[in-house]
């Protein structure tokens, strides 16, 4: 999967659009006809399919940290991923812990996230260092909620500590803190 076009002009973008179903029937049939004549593009499409399957597998394995939607969470649940959800209010700390059966931990962060050029989500130890920083996160669940999913196996490695999730937004050159959400992380629990 090197280069962007095959020697006959079919592009990587066309193959990707075909694979995900973004072409109309006529365009899809043209791509298919080309694939059965061009070994190079058949190999590129195989690479796309393999990569697509690996992304889906990473999600089903709850190994991806990401902003998600309720639709994605519903699909994860249908796929058997066990999800624990916390909804801390801005400016407060709530207790949280990771249990043996948890695969994924979701934080529902509520606030007014509208009108910013760029949003940043930081996870840090209270009075301590940053553990992760995600710059330019997308708003997927409207302007008033951000759903962030974290692998439970990742959180299990953290000791008991107070954590802060901080959402900030940029307007022009100025960065504003929109909300700080506290989690009293009790560590990995057992039953």
């Amino acid at each position: 999967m090197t280069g962007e076009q095959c020697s006959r002009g079919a592009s990587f973008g066309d193959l990707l659009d075909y694979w995900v179903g973004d072409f109309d029937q006529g365009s899809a049939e043209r791509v298919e006809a080309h694939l059965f004549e061009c070994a190079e593009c058949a190999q590129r499409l195989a690479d796309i399919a393999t990569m697509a399957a690996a992304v889906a597998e990473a999600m089903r394995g709850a190994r991806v940290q990401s902003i998600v939607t309720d639709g994605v969470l519903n699909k994860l649940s249908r796929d058997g991923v066990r999800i624990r959800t916390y909804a801390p209010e801005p400016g407060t700390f709530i207790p949280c812990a990771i249990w043996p059966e948890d695969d994924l931990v979701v934080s529902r962060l509520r606030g007014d996230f509208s009108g910013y050029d760029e949003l940043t989500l930081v996870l840090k130890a209270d009075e301590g260092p940053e553990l992760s920083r995600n710059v330019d996160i997308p708003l997927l669940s409207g302007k008033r909620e951000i759903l962030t999913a974290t692998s439970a196996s990742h959180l299990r490695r953290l000791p008991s500590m107070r954590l802060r999730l901080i959402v900030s937004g940029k307007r022009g050159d100025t960065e504003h803190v929109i909300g700080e959400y506290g989690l009293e992380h009790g560590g990995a629990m057992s039953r």
Partner: protein
Amino acid sequence: MDLAAVTDAMLADAIASAAPGAAHQEEAELYRRFAPRVRLYGLRHLRDAAAAQDLVQEVFIVLIERLRSGGVRNLATIGSFILGTSRTMASDLRRTHQRRERLTDTFADRALCVAPTEPTLDQARVDNCLNSLPPRDRTLLILTFYAEKKASDIASTFEMAAGAVRVARHRALARLRDCVMGESSR
């Protein structure tokens, strides 16, 4: 003869000209070249690895029988013949497979039905690369390949034009690919 250097049409002609079953090396070479494409066609249209593998078997049974019996009129366009056969058989298989899926859902472990022939990547590497992508790229790939959302669906969520989503999705996959392939070659 180095079969890798022979054209698709020459392979088809060699199979059609030989006594039935005598051109087994040419038949194997034709399978090596086209089975992955038929499988991808099956995955794209049937959305199931087991059904795609069934399609490969069905198409090649028809293909080899038709070549051996002289039933393929234009050997120069053997790729088109294989595509046409794939289309016809996928339509039949879709109906058969839907019935089989219902049975499997009811009586058996679905994991046992997945053919073990799919190419795979180092999954740990993919996980790391996915988590290291910019947040928008990561989300775009998740919505595309896990949630199976089309560009028009994602466009409304991201408040972007569908065309811009396609470009961004293309770039995000290229970044993931570069990360996975780059690390694998070190």
